[in-house]
């Protein structure tokens, strides 16, 4: 518990009144509100003595003085939460007041430590408490979530858009070139989803074991991992079993597709995808620890997914599919890149040399803008070079989102929770560009059918 400093008394002075507490002779805490004056130079607090014999503040035992503020906001909960409590002893003063001399302090102010960070920092206490409770009750008591929510959280299911975008685009490019099999397309989407979820779970296992996720006390819905192991919602054994099951599903569907298409290229693409996904956090390569995480994600959720889906339909590779994968690859890497900004302290502590860990703030923000511009320029260049159909220029409609994210990063680089909404816009940027490219291809297919 921190020793008293002038700062504590200055903070206490901001509260309109205090609650004074002590343990009375019957062994019960007694607490009473009273007026006060903080003497910051003297290191004391002058308390107005409450009336009544029962409320005489004792001078022979510890006394607690609390200042508390909270603003109820109907329909939303509370905000401006802060409290500060001091411990010390009292002595008499003139005019019916008592002088409180504090010796230690404790408090919380959500403007200094946001509630979510305060909660994260308290996770070890929750684990200790539940472990002791389990011992006391003679049965294991653990936190729980319903199976559906647990699966969503464990696999980070909403991030599947990172798979759907390249896979559907690969299928669309193939369809425009005259190859489309609905069952193969469906199997590709499902197989890609299995692989993605398996990789998510695997990364979580290694990030938890390395301490990277635990060192991060500012997780958001987009960053910091699923935390299901840290929260003790699942065991390591369960998580490994889930990863094996998902990889098994991905491998089974992948092999089925290789058998159906007879394509050796597809086999190699699949193997490369799984290898990159695992090597992302797993030893010995641990790509993300070596500053290669962004490139690994770009390759895995760009060309590998998109070309893989294209090859399933056509049996061959194509420059057009490779080019379409470039903006998708850049934008998916930018999702990771922006999500790494609030994680950078925890990542650095765990030895993960992500780009935001390695680069200064101005370079990180500037590189975001440059990469986003490159993504859109690739589409424009592809259309000018006649490699992409003109309707794919629809993707440019999403460009303002990139500008908004850039502004958000510049403004809230050091504020994880303020940055969160821009992380969401950044996820949407990838989704919308992918969706608009897809619409562009569908328009081109329809035009092709009509002409």
């Amino acid at each position, binding site marked *: 518990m921190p020793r008293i400093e002038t700062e504590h008394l200055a903070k206490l002075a901001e509260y309109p009144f205090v609650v004074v507490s002590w343990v009375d002779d019957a*062994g019960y805490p007694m607490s009473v509100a009273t007026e006060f004056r903080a003497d910051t130079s003297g290191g004391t607090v002058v308390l107005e003595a409450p009336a009544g014999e029962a409320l005489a503040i004792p001078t022979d035992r510890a006394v607690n003085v609390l200042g508390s503020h909270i603003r109820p906001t109907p329909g939303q909960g509370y905000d401006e939460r802060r409290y500060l409590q001091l411990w010390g002893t009292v002595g008499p003063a003139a005019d019916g007041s008592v002088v409180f001399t504090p010796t230690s302090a404790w408090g919380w102010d959500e403007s200094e430590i946001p509630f979510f960070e305060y909660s994260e920092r308290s996770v070890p206490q929750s684990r200790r408490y539940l472990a002791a409770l389990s011992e006391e009750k003679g049965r294991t008591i653990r936190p729980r979530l319903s199976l559906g929510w647990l699966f969503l959280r464990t696999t980070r299911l909403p991030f599947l858009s990172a798979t759907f975008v390249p896979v559907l685009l690969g299928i669309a490019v193939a369809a425009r070139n005259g190859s489309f099999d609905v069952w193969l397309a469906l199997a590709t989407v499902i197989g890609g989803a299995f692989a993605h979820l398996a990789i998510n779970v695997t990364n979580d296992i290694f990030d938890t074991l390395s301490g990277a996720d635990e060192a991060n006390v500012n997780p958001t819905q987009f960053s910091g991992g699923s935390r299901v192991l840290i929260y003790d919602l699942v065991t390591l054994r369960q998580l490994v079993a889930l990863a094996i099951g998902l990889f098994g599903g991905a491998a089974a569907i992948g092999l089925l597709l290789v058998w159906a298409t007879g394509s050796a290229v597809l086999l190699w693409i699949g193997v490369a995808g799984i290898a990159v996904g695992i090597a992302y956090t797993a030893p010995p390569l641990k790509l993300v620890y070596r500053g290669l995480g962004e490139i690994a994600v770009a390759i895995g959720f760009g060309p590998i997914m998109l070309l893989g889906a294209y090859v399933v339909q056509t049996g061959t590779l194509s420059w057009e599919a490779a080019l379409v994968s470039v903006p998708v690859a850049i934008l998916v890497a930018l999702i990771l890149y922006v999500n790494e900004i609030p994680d950078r302290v925890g990542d650095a502590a765990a030895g993960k040399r992500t780009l935001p860990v390695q680069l200064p703030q101005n370079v990180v923000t500037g590189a975001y803008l440059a990469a986003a511009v490159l993504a859109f320029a690739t589409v424009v260049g592809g259309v000018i070079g006649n490699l992409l159909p003109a309707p794919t220029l629809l993707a440019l409609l999403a460009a303002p989102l990139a500008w908004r994210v850039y502004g958000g990063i510049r403004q809230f680089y050091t504020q994880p929770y303020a940055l969160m909404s821009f992380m969401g816009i950044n996820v949407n940027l990838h989704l919308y560009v992918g969706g608009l490219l897809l619409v562009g291809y569908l328009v081109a297919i329809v035009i092709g059918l009509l002409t």
Partner: protein
Amino acid sequence: MGWLPAPVERLLDAALVGELTVIGRDGRPITHPLIPLYDGERIYMHSSTLFSRKLEHIKRDPHVSISLTDPVALGGLSDRATIQGTARIIEDDPHSQWERLILDLWRKKEPVIDAFLKMRVALPLFFERAVIEITPKRCLLWENGDTRREPVESVAPGQEAA
């Protein structure tokens, strides 16, 4: 039913924040701002396992006090009260037992809780909770909140001779 004076019951029904004081391991008082709930007989407070030190303190020493002091958190009521009592921790199933015991009382006072509960997946440990059930023994009431004047004291039936 309960014995607390009507003005104190009004404070308990209105309070969005009260100060729970418990006795720490070293015998010192520790105070926690919490939302009090009242069923007409007992007072209920609750705590996430994240912030569960207070539960450990209560299990070691069940003597507690609750003060209702802040007009902002009391819906503008200006009276103040302090209630001393004994507490019991209800923690057989931190996942859902509290919902069965106190969710209706909590919802009545703070309807927004349903919206937060729907987002349980986002902060699962926050909703792993234990209930602090407090049986009032003694009560002090300051009408108009002026603690420079002596409070009106009430005690639970059967406590007078104690």
